[in-house]
């Protein structure tokens, strides 16, 4: 546990080495340093995991404190970590999936001139993300939070010469800042409420001092959620994530699917005690999550860019995680976070493999029939798609179904129905992607087709490992079976007090009979299969069908294709008016009024001087006259008194 600091330190060292000397090192060395740093971090994490398991379940909490970071008066915040099952799961996901994506990147980025810069950023990202999940208090978490935001900005705009890439990076940073605004205020409110930012102390005090429904806690949790909405791309701040696809594809896999964007979910789960004490905030989290899940899924239905479909799918899946947390099913939320990290990273890397093979092509209208050329990519992509669609026994089945099940069991019938509908949409758009990309006739131009090649080993191996994880990753939490819920058992100490509070306030705890659970599972699978079936009929059996449907519902289709015009709306309602306001104020207030007054004052004195100067004619007679006039005035004045 003393070596916890090593976990972020390894990637940081990698960042320094590649950042400072990377341009002078060979590509092989750069790759070795970056991957080696991640491997060391992963091994350290494994060792800590093993140590954690040795402890009794209720003693699996370590809080290493390193030094006092900022201290002013009663305010003091230490650089400290919190190692418990929740952060352990996150660390393992970040280092494990991170390592695979680093390895994949050595193949994917091999011919890029910015190779060293890329790996420096990627290592820095890993460092910040590990800081985020290991943080022992809100402020250290915020450091990681901003750090990953910075790396996301740098990596989205990695190809900075492309206008769209640097635009997207900037957009991501600024939109996230809007969320961070809420996060910062939440930190202030937390400190002045509890007098500390240390998680363990806050949670203890919250349980002791506050009743469920307290206004202050509601305020804190809602403000924190504003931060989560920004970072995890939920309504209404999701707009940056689809644009973030401008970054290199492994970055999309690591940052914009598997790890960074799940930070909001992690934070909500971390503060589960506070949320449990604020039922209103829980409701907001669940509602926003569910709405985002469905909203993003509908946009995903019609997009033609392979990465954008996956991006909207990520937004949608994050919505499911928030839904889980919002209904109090924290374990389910984190479980889905983990399985999603596996299969979404896999899907992105698979998409990367396709893009790599096709020399940069991302439009699924110009793909088709690729399974003949790219068998490894195809089979692994298929595994990922089955997982996200929620087909038994793939990982996504277990995690998504648990969220749906818990939603219904906590009495959120409407949310359950919507989420179930979203699941059907998910299955449909994913298999639309699979069929359009890998099945049917090739729609590539001959030049591209000529060069199509399967991924090299560095890319194929991570794909395969992730495909296996997408299959077996869900088996750590098998419902119905007697000894099935290992994952929940491991995590449960973290959510103990939150569950206690929730059990006291609502109808939690009524567990339905097994056959109800079984029937609901069957329903989920049926819905997913229906989605796949429709996709099959439209895109394989009857390829003319989608166009007819699009033509028939042309207005709805246009709205979806243009993503409900939300970007345009923000541009027209927020960005442009602010810019225009700034222009106007600059011209009329700053230049004309304020500076005008300054220059005016100067001019006034100059003019006055010019007038008064005339008195000084230099003629003695004039002076004598004015002396005389003065004397007369004085005499008059004296007489008057």
């Amino acid at each position: 546990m003393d070596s916890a600091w090593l976990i972020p330190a390894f990637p940081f060292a990698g960042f320094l080495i590649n950042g400072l000397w990377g341009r002078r090192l060979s590509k092989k060395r750069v790759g070795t340093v970056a991957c080696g740093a991640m491997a060391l971090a992963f091994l350290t994490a494994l060792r800590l995991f093993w140590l954690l398991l040795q402890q009794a379940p209720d003693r699996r909490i370590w809080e290493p404190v390193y030094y006092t970071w900022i201290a002013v008066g009663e305010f003091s915040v230490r650089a400290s970590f919190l190692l418990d099952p929740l952060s352990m799961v996150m660390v393992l996901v970040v280092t494990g999936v991170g390592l695979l994506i680093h390895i994949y990147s050595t193949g994917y980025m091999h011919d890029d001139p910015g190779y060293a810069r890329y790996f420096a950023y990627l290592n820095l990202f890993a460092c910040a993300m590990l800081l985020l999940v290991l943080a022992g208090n809100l402020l250290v978490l915020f450091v990681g939070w901003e750090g990953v935001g910075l790396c996301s900005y740098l990596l989205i705009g990695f190809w900075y010469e492309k206008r769209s890439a640097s635009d997207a990076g900037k957009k991501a940073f600024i939109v996230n800042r809007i969320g961070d605004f809420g996060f910062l205020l939440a930190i202030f409110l937390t400190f002045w409420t509890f007098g500390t930012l240390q998680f363990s102390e806050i949670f203890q005090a919250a349980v002791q001092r506050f009743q469920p429904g307290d206004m202050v806690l509601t305020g804190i949790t809602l403000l924190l959620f504003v931060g989560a909405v920004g970072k995890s791309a939920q309504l209404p701040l999701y707009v940056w994530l689809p644009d973030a696809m401008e970054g290199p594809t492994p970055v999309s896999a690591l940052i914009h699917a598997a790890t960074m964007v799940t930070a909001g979910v992690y934070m909500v789960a971390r503060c589960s005690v506070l949320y449990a004490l604020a039922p209103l905030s829980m409701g907001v989290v669940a509602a926003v999550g569910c709405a985002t899940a469905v909203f993003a899924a509908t946009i995903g239905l019609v997009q033609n860019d392979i990465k954008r479909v996956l991006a909207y799918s990520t937004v949608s899946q994050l919505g499911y995680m928030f839904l889980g947390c919002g209904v109090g099913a924290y374990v389910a939320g984190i479980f889905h976070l983990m399985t999603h990290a596996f299969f979404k990273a896999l899907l992105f890397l698979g998409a990367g493999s396709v893009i790599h093979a096709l020399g940069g092509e991302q439009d699924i209208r110009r793909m088709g029939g690729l399974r003949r050329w790219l068998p490894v990519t195809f089979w692994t992509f298929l595994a990922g798609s089955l997982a996200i669609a929620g087909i038994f026994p793939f990982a996504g089945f277990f995690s998504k179904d648990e969220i749906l099940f818990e939603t219904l069991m906590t009495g959120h019938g409407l949310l359950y129905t919507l989420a179930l509908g979203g699941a059907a949409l998910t299955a449909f758009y994913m298999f639309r992607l699979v069929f359009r990309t890998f099945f049917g006739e090739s729609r590539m131009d001959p030049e591209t087709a000529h060069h199509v090649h399967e991924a090299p080993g560095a890319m194929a191996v991570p794909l395969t490992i992730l495909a296996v994880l997408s299959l077996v990753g869900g088996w750590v939490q098998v419902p119905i079976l007697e000894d099935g819920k290992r994952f929940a058992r491991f995590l449960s100490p973290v959510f103990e007090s939150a569950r206690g509070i929730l059990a006291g306030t609502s109808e939690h705890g009524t567990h339905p009979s097994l056959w109800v659970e079984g029937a609901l599972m069957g329903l989920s699978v049926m819905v997913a299969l229906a989605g796949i079936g429709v996709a099959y009929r439209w895109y394989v059996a009857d390829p003319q069908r989608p166009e007819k449907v699009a033509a028939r519902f042309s207005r709805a289709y246009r709205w979806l294709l243009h993503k409900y015009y939300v970007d345009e709306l923000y541009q027209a309602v927020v960005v442009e008016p602010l810019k225009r306001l700034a222009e106007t104020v600059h011209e009329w207030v700053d230049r004309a009024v304020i500076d005008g007054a300054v220059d005016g004052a100067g001019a006034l004195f100059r003019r006055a001087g010019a007038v008064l100067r005339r008195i000084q004619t230099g003629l003695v007679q004039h002076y004598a006259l004015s002396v005389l006039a003065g004397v007369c005035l004085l005499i008059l004045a004296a007489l008057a008194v």
Partner: protein
Amino acid sequence: MENVFFPVLSAMVFTPLLGALLLVFVDRENRPLQRWVALVTMAVVFGFALIVYGGFDPARAGMQFEEWTPWIPALGISYHLGVDGISLLLVMLTAFLGPICVLACWRDIRDRVKEFLVCLLLLQTGMLGVFLALDLVLFYLFWEVMLIPMALLILVWGHPARRVYAAVKFFLYTMAGSVFMLVGILVLYFHQAKTTGTYSFDLTDFMALRLPFRLQLWLFAAFGVAFAIKVPMFPFHTWLPDAHTEAPTVGSVVLAAVLLKMGTYGFLRFNLPLFPEASVFFTPLMVALALAGIIYGAFMCLVQKDLKRLIAYSSVSHLGFVLLGLFTFTLQGLQGSLIQMINHGLSTGALFLLVGMLYERRHTRMIADFGGLSTPVPRLAVFFMIATLASIGLPGLNGFVGEFLILLGTFKVRPLWAALGATGVILAAWYMLWMVQRVFFGEVHKEENRSLLDLVPREVGLLVPLVACMVWIGVAPTGFLKKSEPAVDRVLARVQQVQQTAREKTQLKPECLVSWYPADRK
């Protein structure tokens, strides 16, 4: 720990003057020697500053290394220097930037090098004197002395187009403010003579006074105008963009990094402890102007086409934060303000240096003339990025510590103020990253930019210490904060003592202005 065998503060203040005298005797054509003399002088000053820093006792709130000699006894004027937690870090910053400034103009200034360096050294004496003087006549003297070399820097080495306008505006505007302060000092002096019979300009004597409330109001305003112009506080800020744009690089660096801090330092050193009740009374106004400055300055940044003007307006925004922190009357706010003064000096100083380096290469500061510079000058781009991130308050770098503490303190008093202030953080990301994008990203679309020379070792060498300090303060600010805490606490105690009575006296209930969340909720 004041076992220094010589008057180290005087040595620090007057070494630059000595260096300037020495320069006079150096041959006009021997420019390398002139530069080396200046550099060594500045380095010696920094050495003295390190001695002071090392010997400073962080546990004591009062003045240390004090020097006191009667100067004009008939009028009660004395030569009184001293350093406490409030001035220590500012002195360190000033001394630290000295050698960097000399190095920065090593190649930049070719015309009248000797005179330039003399100005720079005189400026150093003036600035150190302002931070160290404890006699108000002495303070005023340094305050005015410093104006002249600065105005000359703009007037002689500025950009030909508008340098006269900018220099005159800078000089007259600040001068106009100072005159009010001079009147204030005299009123204070005669009031003291009348009530206690002591004729003295010594700050410690003034501190012992209990000034009547109405007098405090007038004196606060008199001192406040001088300081507000210097900060510059909205709406007294319009001299700043002009002065910055026209000044040579080093002039901008000193102006942004040190000169502006004299305004905020003045508030903390004089207005708060001398006129505590008036400070409480004026809080709503000061906070309103500070918040206006934060948001207004940020908005103005969005439309600037000139890099220097943009950074100048960003200073208005950042110093708004400093003012906001001062008038929260919380330890976090005040400490945050103090460290933010240093932070702004480091990050904005670095930004002006970098813009100067660009200007040296391209002879333009217009954003539209750049674009895609990451490709030809990657090292410069990296440093620019780091300074930008420090400036927009990325945790792990210095700016965050200051902004966080200020907003934390503000939130305690009025959450709404903190929320308004925090919008400045969003806007800062917008205008700064947009600028970075337009300058460094995209394709190189001008031929002239394609063959720009990247940073040379001298330039890297003078940026690295700045970046190191940004990281140092960002990662481990406690060492710095601890040094100033007792002194700041003492100022705070003076204000808090009268806070209650002052509010009653003026029937001023800030709660009815903007109340969102009760302040003293436990």
